[in-house]
């Protein structure tokens, strides 16, 4: 049996175990799954944003050779509504959400009919034979107009497009502090809609076992455990007859934190037809039918003293729900509600969010989910306040942030930040960035009237992640808990299986959980296998989202491993005929204090337990252990991001010249994985600032409907990132870790836009709507300078 070398696994940049199969594709992506007799689904989708369905006739499709069956919305009448698990207020408007539309379509992409055929091609072709008569209804697209009394209604039976109003007022009355403020600034920011782009599209396969009424659902999902519960509730298939498998999943970013109509339909049709079925979306179908992210109008107001001390903050948010409420749609802006005060101290906070129905694809979680929006608004207006009171934006932040000696600190919105050191992260970032030198260069270039302007943007963020303490979720009216499960199976030959309730889709859990377990158990990294993503082999879990997996699930692995050691200690003490208290445990070896030759490895203990020939009296013959962890708090990563941009005023093009981030994600299990998460997060945050937007026309059609029109940046479009860390351990979990999955996305968007506005402010531009495309920047410059006659962009000197 192999023994440990003594080097700790935690903190090592282990190459990821899972990469060989993920990178080569030699694995069970859902769409790779083929079974005998498989039928293929294709879905006809509404070409209109809003219309009454006068007639649907699938019979012409049925006449096509190879078509097995076809269905309309009425054929699914026995299914329950698709679920919304987060009704944020008592009086929230909860419209029914049929998997296939019945009398009315409410967004371009709403399913209208389903065709089942022997192959995918036949199914897709047969959609063109389905006859549908639509009677157009007015689209509902503008969030403010949607709330007017005479607005057209997305759900006429509900009498309003107002889904909910969610208020939060803490500290002093905002109006009171506003009266004593020297400076009051009010801004409106737009969070454009974004379309998640996981590399693997959504896909689902359902195989029925007719003899026992059992079904296996394979789905490219982030949430196999939640999905199992929800599918049972929506379809009536008993939960114990349902097995849900998330095979290897190629990314999600929140878009697979969902219970989709296609999953429900696939299960229902496998049941009705008694045949296995598959549905896989195409990219452009996904753009219509996979939920979107962001989509908010933010009215934000700060009240401050002349010296730049924040007194109060008021936020009025309009959040676009889209046409229906999906799994956690209403909760997304509420996750942001707590984050507007960010790292700053103040006396009053007043927040209101109004959820609004529109005739667009439903919104839901997208990397960061509510927190990037909040961080953007507060970090943008902090820059505006700095200008207003004549301070450097970093200095303004220093005057307002929570000092490192003040932790734990209860924020104005009621969160208890357990740890942090904003000074350390900021100082490190400023030094790496060369802040003072860049400011000097900027001043020189502004003075010379250079046609290429330099701008510097800062974002000092924190975020709440590691969802979540179950009692907090109860208070927020979220239907489920926030615990996570881990169990450890010590195999007779000394190998280890770690069973986790998290469901990785690219994060590297297999590697990190192995590192954690290997250290606690004192076994080699290679001897640990991580089992996940199958409700049969990993029966309990709350899955992966909200940067929770390490903080909750990884910590649960740690606790379970400690329980294994505790049990093994009893067996070892018995075998060594020593008192438990006299045993030491180092690098997987139990030994008697003072006589190191008296030893048993944990692997030997595992085998002794398997044979059970000589266990302590009354002991169960196992050292396996399980731990369910309900976290006591969120985790609060923070950091300072600095961005320098150059803007070509002739073309409006923004180029990122340098990007420095210093993140504090607490203790680090695997540095190279953290680095990867930061890089990907930065890419997605920069993408919102510069590139991505779901564009709709006046009729509610998605104009940016393919990857040719929806611009996902690639490596050539992004700068070199300079990343570094400070390490202030979290106190709320034994590993000292904080989530890192969303931090880069949350921090980077305002850093980039602050830099753009910083570059353009001397030219009269005070805001640019995202994405800050070259055309928008140029138009902003043109309108700011329209007083000057004949301006065509600064001439190159």
């Amino acid at each position, binding site marked *: 049996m192999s023994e440990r070398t003594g080097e700790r696994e935690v903190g090592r940049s282990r190459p990821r175990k899972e990469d060989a199969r993920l990178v080569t594709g030699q694995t069970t992506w859902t769409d790779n799954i083929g079974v005998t007799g498989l039928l293929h689904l294709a879905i006809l989708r509404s070409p209109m944003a809003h219309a009454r369905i006068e007639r649907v006739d699938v019979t012409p499709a049925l006449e096509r050779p190879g078509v097995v069956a076809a269905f309309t919305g009425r054929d699914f009448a026995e299914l329950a509504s698709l679920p919304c698990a987060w009704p944020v207020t008592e009086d929230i408007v909860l419209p029914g959400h049929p998997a296939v539309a019945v009398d009315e379509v409410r967004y371009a992409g709403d399913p209208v009919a389903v065709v089942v055929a022997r192959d995918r091609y036949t199914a897709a072709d047969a959609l063109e034979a389905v006859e549908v008569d639509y009677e157009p209804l007015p689209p509902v697209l503008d969030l403010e107009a949607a709330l007017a009394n005479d607005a057209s209604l997305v759900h006429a039976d509900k009498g309003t497009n107002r889904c909910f109003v969610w208020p939060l007022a803490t500290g002093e009355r905002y109006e009171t502090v506003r009266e004593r403020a020297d400076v009051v600034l009010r801004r409106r920011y737009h969070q454009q809609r974004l379309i998640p782009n996981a590399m693997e599209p959504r896909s689902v396969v359902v195989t029925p076992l007719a003899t026992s009424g059992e079904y296996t659902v394979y789905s490219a999902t982030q949430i196999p455990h939640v999905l199992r519960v929800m599918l049972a509730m929506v379809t009536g298939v008993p939960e114990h007859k349902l097995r849900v498998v998330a095979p290897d999943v190629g990314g999600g970013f929140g878009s697979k934190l969902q219970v989709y109509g296609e999953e429900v339909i696939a299960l229902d049709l496998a049941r009705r037809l008694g045949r296995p079925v598959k549905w896989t979306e195409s990219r452009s179908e996904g753009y219509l039918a996979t939920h979107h992210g962001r989509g908010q109008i933010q009215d934000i107001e700060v009240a401050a003293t002349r010296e730049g001390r924040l007194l109060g903050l008021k936020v009025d948010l309009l959040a676009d729900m889209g046409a229906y409420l999906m799994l956690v749609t209403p909760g997304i802006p509420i996750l942001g509600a707590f984050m507007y005060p960010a790292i700053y101290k103040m006396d009053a906070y007043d927040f209101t969010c109004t959820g609004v129905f529109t005739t667009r694809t439903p919104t839901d979680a997208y990397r960061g989910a509510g927190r990037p929006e909040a961080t953007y608004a507060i970090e943008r207006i902090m820059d505006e306040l700095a200008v207003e009171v004549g301070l450097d934006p970093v200095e303004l932040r220093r005057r307002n942030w929570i000092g490192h000696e003040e932790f734990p600190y209860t924020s104005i919105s009621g969160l208890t930040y357990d740890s942090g050191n904003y000074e350390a992260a900021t100082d490190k970032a400023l030094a790496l960035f060369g802040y003072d030198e860049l400011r000097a260069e900027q001043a020189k270039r502004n003075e010379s009237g250079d046609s290429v302007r330099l701008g510097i943007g800062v974002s000092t963020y924190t975020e709440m992640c590691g969802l979540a303490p179950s009692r907090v979720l109860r208070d927020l009216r979220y239907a489920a808990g926030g615990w996570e499960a881990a169990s450890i199976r010590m195999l007779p030959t000394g190998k280890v299986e770690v069973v986790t309730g998290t469901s990785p889709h690219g994060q590297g859990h297999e590697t990190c959980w192995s590192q954690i377990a290997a250290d606690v158990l004192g076994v080699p990294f290679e001897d640990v296998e991580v089992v996940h993503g199958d409700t049969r082999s990993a029966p309990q879990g709350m899955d992966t989202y909200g940067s929770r997996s390490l903080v909750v699930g990884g910590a649960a692995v740690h606790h379970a491993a400690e329980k294994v050691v505790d049990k093994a200690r009893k067996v070892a003490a018995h075998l060594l005929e020593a008192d438990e208290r006299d045993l030491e445990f180092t690098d997987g070896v139990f030994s008697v204090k003072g006589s190191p030759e008296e030893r048993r490895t944990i692997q030997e203990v595992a085998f002794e337990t398997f044979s059970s020939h000589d266990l302590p009296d009354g002991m169960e013959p196992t050292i396996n252990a399980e731990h369910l962890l309900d976290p006591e708090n969120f985790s609060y990563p923070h950091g300072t991001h600095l961005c320098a941009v150059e803007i070509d005023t002739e073309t409006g093009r923004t180029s990122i010249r340098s990007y420095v981030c210093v993140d504090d994600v607490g203790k680090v299990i695997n540095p190279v994985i953290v680095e990867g998460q930061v890089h990907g997060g930065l890419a997605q945050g920069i993408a919102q600032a510069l590139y991505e937007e779901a564009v709709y026309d006046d009729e509610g059609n998605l104009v940016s409907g393919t990857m040719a029109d929806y611009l996902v940046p690639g490596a050539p479009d992004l700068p070199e990132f300079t990343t570094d860390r400070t390490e202030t351990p979290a106190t709320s979990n034994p590993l000292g870790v904080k989530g890192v999955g969303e931090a880069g996305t949350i921090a980077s968007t305002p850093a980039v836009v602050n830099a753009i506005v910083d570059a353009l402010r001397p030219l009269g531009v005070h805001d640019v709507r995202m994405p800050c495309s*070259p055309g928008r920047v140029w138009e902003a410059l043109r309108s700011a300078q329209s007083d000057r006659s004949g301006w065509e962009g600064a001439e190159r000197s």
Partner: protein
Amino acid sequence: MIPPAFEYTRPRSVEDAVRTLADAGEDAKVLAGGQSLLPLLRMRLAFPELVVDVGRIPGLRGVREEGEALVIGALTTHHDVIADPLVRRHAGLLAAAAATVADPAIRHRGTLGGSLAHADPGGDLPAVALALDAELVAVGPEGQRVVPAGEFFVDFLQTALRPDELLVEVRVPKTGESDGWGFHYEKFSRVAQAWAMVGVAALVRREDGHIAEARIGLTNMGSTPLRASAAEEALAGADPDGVARAAQSAAEGTRPAAEPGVSAEYRAQLARVLTRRSVLAAAGMG
């Protein structure tokens, strides 16, 4: 996405292909590298009954010299165009522009002939063909005919090719640096692999520190690629200051389309700025 059903045939020769096209009439589409046609099929924007795959017809690939011109087979891939020593020596503009087309995977499959015959005004190579005064050689039932690039691009995705004609080669007059020619392709796109928002192909001949002759091809400034004729005239004899003045007329006579986030005025601005930059770079004055 899944294309609509179509018949597929793979002719062995140009004659065979032309005959097939003549029989099929308007219902056939020619498939070469597939980088433009396949997306149209998959998005169900094109519904041909017959796809004629000419990709394996022998003799349509490669570059040869014919007197004062290069003759480039229509099936030569972008990658092969970029790497070809003759192209690099005698038609550097073409190599430079082809290197900006999409990404490496597409450049290994997409062909010069396919790109020109597709006639997307946002494609990079049509404007380059215009600037190079290239000639396009088509074969139809009546035999071969030569179409000057200036007459080839008729409208958005429409060329002078008849349904029964196949583009077989592209003739490019030599514009070598040893003869005083300089070139540059200035492409402005939102992300690296995207189409040009505007592109400017500049080919200039210098004499005694000023520009003797300039040819400017504009990408995406109308429903076809265009020559910036007014700017070309103003560039004759220009020094660097003269280039800046001449570039102001680069958008004259163009009709750029507007789309979300990109106004026609903005495209005109880009044409002017990029023309100045492209010409200065081509003339070594930058």
